[in-house]
């Protein structure tokens, strides 16, 4: 019986032990993440690199630092922030694509400079630059072509943001139909992929798109 008790006892202790080590690991992980800090470039440098004024940069940085005191945004925080704007749906997939579009050097985090560069293009760039950015967003694997699968992923992500309670009810193949429409409009040589030139050309021909590109000019 003593042996049995030891057996049971050791089981109990070993389980306890493993949970203890797990806790230690996660605590250390958290401490590691917390010590990564980032300080942005000087204000003058950023002003020269982007198309914002000093005051605008100040306002942007204050907002940025408020949400992310460590100076960088990782994907989790990004998704959290973005999902606050779309309470009804699930915006994590689209936020993931956005994150990849902003994270130009692909190091898994968005610093203030990346943020400003992206915003500078979106808000103060030429139509060409904006369309370029949008193409970059859609081209998930960054190979220079938008395939139907990539577009379907993007479309599903956008429709996910609507959530369930929509009118009319979202069907399974609504995104697919939308992708078909998109490709009909954009894919000029009907080869199943959209290149950057086809994209820019088709967008420039569409009046709606051109007008909507100017919509967010005065956002800051």
């Amino acid at each position: 019986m003593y042996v049995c008790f030891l057996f049971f006892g050791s089981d109990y202790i070993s389980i306890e032990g493993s949970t203890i080590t797990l806790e230690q690991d996660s605590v250390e992980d958290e401490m590691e993440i917390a010590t990564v800090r980032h300080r942005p470039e000087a204000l003058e440098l950023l002003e020269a690199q982007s198309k914002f004024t000093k005051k605008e940069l100040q306002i942007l940085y204050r907002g940025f630092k408020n949400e992310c005191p460590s100076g960088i945004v990782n994907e989790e925080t990004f998704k959290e922030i973005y999902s606050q704007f779309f309470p009804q749906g699930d915006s994590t997939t689209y936020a993931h694509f956005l994150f990849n579009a902003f994270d130009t050097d692909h190091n898994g985090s968005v610093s203030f400079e990346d943020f400003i560069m992206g915003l500078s293009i979106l808000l103060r760039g030429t139509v060409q630059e904006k369309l370029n950015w949008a193409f970059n967003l859609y081209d998930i694997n960054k190979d220079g072509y938008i395939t139907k699968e990539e577009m379907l992923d993007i479309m599903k992500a956008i429709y996910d943001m609507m959530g369930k309670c929509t009118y009319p009810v979202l069907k399974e193949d609504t995104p697919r139909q939308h992708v078909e429409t998109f490709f009909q409009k954009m894919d000029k040589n009907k080869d199943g992929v959209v290149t950057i030139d086809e994209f820019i050309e088709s967008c420039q021909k569409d009046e709606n798109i051109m007008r909507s590109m100017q919509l967010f000019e005065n956002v800051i």
Partner: protein
Amino acid sequence: MAAGVAAWLPFARAAAIGWMPVANCPMPLAPTEKNKRQDELIILNVSGRRFQTWRTTLERYPDTLLGSTEKEFFFNEDTKEYFFDRDPEVFRCILNFYRTGKLHYPRYECISAYDEELAFYGILPEIIGDCCYEEYKDRKRENAERLMDDNDSENNQEGSMPSLNLRQTMWRAFENPHTSTLALVFYYVTGFFIAVSVITNVVETVPCGTVPGNKELPCGERYAVAFFCLDTACVMIFTVEYLMRLFAAPSRYRFMRSVMSIIDVVAIMPYYIGLVMTNNEDVSGAFVTLRVFRVFRIFKFSRHSQGLRILGYTLKSCASELGFLLFSLTMAIIIFATVMFYAEKGSSASKFTSIPASFWYTIVTMTTLGYGDMVPKTIAGKIFGSICSLSGVLVIALPVPVIVSNFSRIYHQNQRADKRRAQKKARLARIRVAKTGSSSAYLHSKRNGLLNAALELTGSSDDEQHISKSTSLIESQHHHLLHCLEKTTNHEFIDEQLFEQNCMDNSMQNYPSTRSPSLSSNNGGSTSCCSRRNKKTTHLPNSNVPATRLRSMQELSTIHIQCSEQPSLTTSRSSLNMKSEDGLRPNCKTSHLTTAIITIPTPPALTPEGESSPHPTTNISTTCSNIVKVSAL
């Protein structure tokens, strides 16, 4: 939407450019900032301590004192600052709320003072962050209980009680003996009789005196009549008490199921059964057994003793630990009994005749009792016997403190877990409310905005003011963003209830299995949205009908009517915003529920309002007959 992320709204709007090439409809106009003020620092002087912050920080929460124009009442012209004659310590927390979006509750602060400050600044306590919410609720509950206790004792001292009827008075007297002298008397009398009954049961088995014939008689048989009288008296009292409790109980069924009443019944049953069965010799043996149950009267003491009740509750809550102890003991006993049996099998005249017989030895040895009626004689038996007694010490002694500490830990944990469960529900509810709040704010403003527009067109401008609520710039920008998303995907946000209503109604209809003709007549449903809009504007100037009728008329004028949409949704869709969602067949998951279709050629049945709509268009395809909603009753 949390104000903290309001700073990221420009980013979210910029990112919306990613939707533009995908959208097929033009986007709504962006709200303009009417008076773009430069951000300025404002000074808040709270009892001499000066706080400074940006104006936009305070304006994040426009429905509080500091965020609205209410603070102008506190503006001091001479010093150009806002002066508040309040506690500066608590103000620190409140200002931090504006800055970070999280309200914290400092531990050193008095709960009622804090509540007063929150009420003054117009902040709801429910916004307190999760880190401090538990503490806040605990303190608040303690405080409330303390106030309630004070009130109660005041009431008792005053002696002013609402008039209760006889039943309620009796029940109160039974439950709380201290309420009146009569109750106290009753309490002590029943207690006395329980004691008498128990002592009687004990004494009647004591042998007292002998009878000629060299036989010792227990007192019970010697003074049979006396004992019988005592027993009868006790049972009388118990019966009367039970019946009175039964009469006074507010819920008789629940009372009869409670443990105490079962104990009462079991305590007095043997007597009555004995009365009935005295003449029958066969069952007198069973009758004797029944008398054992009289000892249950001792449990009636638990009404008189709080400690017994707590002990009972403790055992009940610790049942699993006790069960485990029992189980491990049983395992140990079986193992050692088996070993001892086989070890002692060889020796002659061994008392270990079978394994169950060895159980007794094992139990006696492990609990270190050692009666000595069974002892091992072989060497192997002695070795194993000693191992048994050593392990007995460990097995019995160790789990007891473990159980005790387990019990105390579990007890406190349970309390905390219950608290957390209750608060988790509240927390989830708060999150849900916040979410639905922001989405319903959007829907609400959409309705208001569209109604506004509709009224403008129909020329009635006097109602405009009271419909358009003033939304802050950030809110209107957020709504614009959601509107763009709607335009991109060609679907609208609606309420959950409307959505479910939609599903239910669509499940009651049946559509032809073939594709709808709409898709063939238009190049994709989505492009028709823009063309439809232009067509429908012609209806507007002539109509001062409510939007519902417009809706249904336009429904009929479209080609495919197989699924009539909900007219009740019209409050959220004015004629301006008409899209051809008709083109996209609603396809709820419950669509496989098909009820009988009654095809009636007259369309008025389609519109529940019963209006006589214009004649149905003749280009209703033959495949989609007019479908009437069959109400599932």
